[in-house]
């Protein structure tokens, strides 16, 4: 309640920033779901509590510097004064109390907003498997049998459970307006849950530097009504191409989404987006297990590596 004003200012500033850009929400200051909203609330709370410790510094430093300036003959001068029990108690006590308050807050929210924790919602959750590639994201919908590059469509008010890995170096997956980020690492599975309150377009990105195409590794997360989502799925099934090990090897090459789209002749779709009507079974598992066989993965079979060879890689998989 105390921080309502602050909250309003933050929203206002966020709106100003938004009005300047294209209409994609790309900050948690303008949240599109409960997780980002809670994160914003946390930020404002911390700002408020720490001000108790900080404002005295801001206000008293200039007062002291002016009052006790060398030329001020009226100020008291006590060169040997170096201790006061009252001050000592205040100096240790106030920050301790603030940190204690913030710590309980941190304990509650960190558990409540744990990215591994499913979000309660009325609709059945949607599972999506995310593979980070250089420099694009592959989204596999295992229950729908479709996949996309750089386009994450989700129904509104539905908990989305993401499983993440990469088939190259480490990356970090984030849709700021919906939830925070989580690392995606080769041979490992991380998890993230998010939910969009209403239809909207949200920018998603990789935040972990992974080479020359890094700034291009953005995608659109599109929240839509259930009906619109069903229509979208139908459209992907109708217009998409199959995601085979051959086309996967092309997508996995170090290239931006736009370059991969060109290689696979999908330019009718929005920039950088590719639709796949079918997905080879257990593709996510195949990627995950590529590094877990106890056999070497040579650079020619390592997506993203210098010397990666899609042909050799498919051969490798067939073998």
């Amino acid at each position, binding site marked *: 309640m105390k921080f309502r004003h602050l909250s309003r200012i933050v929203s206002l500033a966020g709106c100003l920033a938004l009005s300047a850009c294209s209409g994609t929400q790309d900050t948690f200051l303008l949240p599109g779901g409960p997780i980002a909203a809670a994160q914003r609330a946390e930020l404002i709370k911390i700002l408020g509590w720490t001000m108790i410790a900080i404002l005295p510094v801001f206000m008293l430093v200039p007062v002291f510097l002016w009052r006790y300036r060398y030329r001020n003959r009226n100020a008291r*001068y006590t060169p040997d004064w170096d201790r006061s029990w009252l001050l000592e108690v205040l100096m240790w006590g106030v920050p301790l109390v603030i940190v204690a308050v913030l710590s309980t807050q941190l304990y509650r929210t960190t558990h409540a907003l744990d990215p591994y924790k499913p979000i309660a919602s009325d609709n059945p959750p949607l599972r999506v498997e995310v593979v980070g590639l250089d420099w694009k994201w592959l989204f596999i919908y295992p229950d729908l049998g479709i996949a996309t590059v750089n386009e994450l469509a989700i129904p509104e008010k539905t908990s989305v459970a993401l499983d993440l890995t990469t088939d190259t170096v480490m990356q970090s997956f984030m849709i700021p307006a919906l939830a925070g980020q989580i690392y995606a690492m080769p041979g490992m599975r991380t998890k993230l849950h998010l939910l969009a309150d209403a239809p909207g377009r949200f920018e998603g990105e990789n935040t972990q530097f992974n080479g020359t195409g890094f700034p291009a590794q953005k995608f659109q997360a599109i929240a839509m009504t259930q009906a619109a989502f069903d229509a979208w799925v139908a459209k992907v099934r109708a217009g998409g191409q199959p995601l085979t090990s051959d086309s996967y090897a092309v997508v996995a090459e170090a290239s931006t989404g736009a370059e991969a789209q060109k290689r696979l002749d999908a330019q009718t779709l929005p920039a950088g987006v590719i639709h796949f009507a079918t997905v080879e079974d257990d593709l996510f598992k195949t990627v995950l297990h590529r590094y877990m066989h106890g056999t070497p993965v040579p650079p020619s079979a390592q997506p993203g590596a210098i010397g990666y060879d899609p042909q050799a890689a498919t051969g490798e998989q067939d073998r």
Partner: protein
Amino acid sequence: MSNAILGRLDLSSLSIWRAIENPTGSELIGAGAAMLVIVGGLAAVILLTWFRLWKPLWRDWLTSVDHKRIGIMYCALALIMLARGVIEGALMRTQQAFGLHGGFLAPDHFSELFSTHGTIMIFFVAMPFIAGVINYVMPLQIGARDMAFPVMNQISLGLTATGAALVMISLVLGEFSTGGWANYPPYTGGDFQPGPGPDYWIWAIVLAGIGTTLSGINFAVTIYKERAPGMDFLRMPIFCWTVICTSIIMVFALPPLTVAALMLAADRYLDFHFFTNDLGGNMMNYVNLFWLFGHPEVYLLVIPCYGIFSEVISTFSGKRIYGYMSMVYATMSIAVLSFCVWLHHFFTMGQSASINVAFGIASMAIAVPTGIKVYNWMATLFRGRVRMTVPMIYATGFFYLFVVGGLTGVMLANPVISFQVHNTLFLVAHFHNVIIPGVLFGLLAGYHYWFPKAFGFRLHEGWGRAAALLWIAGFSFTFLPLYWLGLQGMPRRSVTFSDPAFQPMMWLALFGAALIVSALGCIAVQLWISIRKRDQLAVPLGDPWNGRSLEWSIPAPPPAYNFAVLPQVCARDDFAEAKADGRAYRAPGQYEDIEMPDNTAIGMIVCVCATLLGLALVFWIWWLAILSFAAMILALIGRTFRVNARHVIPAAEIAAEHRAWLARIEAAPAVDRLEETHERNLGRAVLEQPGRLEAAQ
């Protein structure tokens, strides 16, 4: 691809050759930087030859084991590298200001810039600057004649210089890593970056890191064993306490980094699989090891600067430091806590919420002792007599800006927020916000404060003020907008961006970068003008600021042996007490011979051999690697056979010098603080009386 004599070094390794073959803007900028290194090196050689300075350089500096000269050389190295680091930062700001869908730098060049910028600023600016100030000041403050291990001190400097040299050479030969200052695998593994870039990083870090570990041992042992009689632990100036904490961190935090870098080297050179994707490698281990070093490192840098601010604020307020014991406890608890928080650099790696909670709370807990320090400095201003000299301007900027950095630190300590702003420009703004106002302002305040002690003349006040104000404004314009961009979700290390809404903030940041470059220019001009006007600025008597600790009780610059007679310490702020009691500037009953260590070339031999070793390893020139390594080891073993490497300074010579100085003190006018920055200030101070100030003039 690789031959027996030159390894993988060939014509295309030369960045100038690459620019001739492919003259794009980016390559030309790279070649220009390489030319700058070559021309700068040649100019230095020509000037040294022209003014016949080779011999004095060798005799008085490069082979010296005097902690004061080693300290000055560390600071000189740091200032040279600072110039490169600032220019790189400004270049990145310029690229991003024009970076909406484009800009003028190639992505690879931009990545090299942020990698070298970070590596240089941390390892070859902040660390040597701090090692330099500690080297110079700490032995003087505890009343010692030299470091506990003067020769090892020289070797530490040699190894640090080696690391810096390798980073400089990477401008001319080959290229630097593009993996950022943390150089995370697998991106920096052999599969993804087979070139020499990450190898430059590895060997620069390993060699300099060993040097820093040795420095830490040296500083700690010096404080434990070399204190003057009566200098109890609880009588030491706060700066020395901060040095203890920093040395402990150096000793314990640097080895994980050295080990992590060597493990990465094993992956790259010997086909090991510590951090590779396949065969059981796991980059999470690297991330943990790196930050097990990386977080204490932040405190390693900032703690001595807390010490510098303590000295500066106490001296220029004409007061004891408020809450000495609180300061000691706070510093020690920060040093211990700094080892308990490394995981907050990767809350987003997928560990359980409980682990994140533990590390989040530990990280926030550091705000308590840090807060105490800020309040203690404020209480030191309270009822003091504050002179707004250059170091105090830096301190004021520090008060304001560092507190903002602390606020965003508390935010980042919270996993919930970290999930959103990790890896964004918010993070970049945060760590610049603690490192520039905290570390760099502290070091520049210290530079200004102790320069007259080291060289016998003050730095020009006007240019110093201009530099300080420009630094403060430049920092604010450059980095405060980045907080906003980070909250808007802009990732760090982006060569371009596509959201036009970011543009105005980018321009603001570029303006700030221009201010920072001019601040650096002011510092250079200030040094030039101060050297030219050194007669007007001279403070040979040694106490220009009415100082409180032992270093001010000796001439400026101090003699090689520091103290004619080792001081008998009776109190905290002993020199201030001595001046008040009339104990100061007394001639001792008798002088004794002083034994001092001889000069040695071992530091230079190690530096040259290690640089060749590093280059040989980077370019796979195996014969040279074996040769230079063997030469270095043999030289070190050979050195151990010299047992009596000491010379004696006779008592008569010391007595004559000391008595002459005391006579000058007797004859010189003592000045009050209104004349502190006046020509009349020769370095002898009038005692400040408590109560009201007498009418000025």
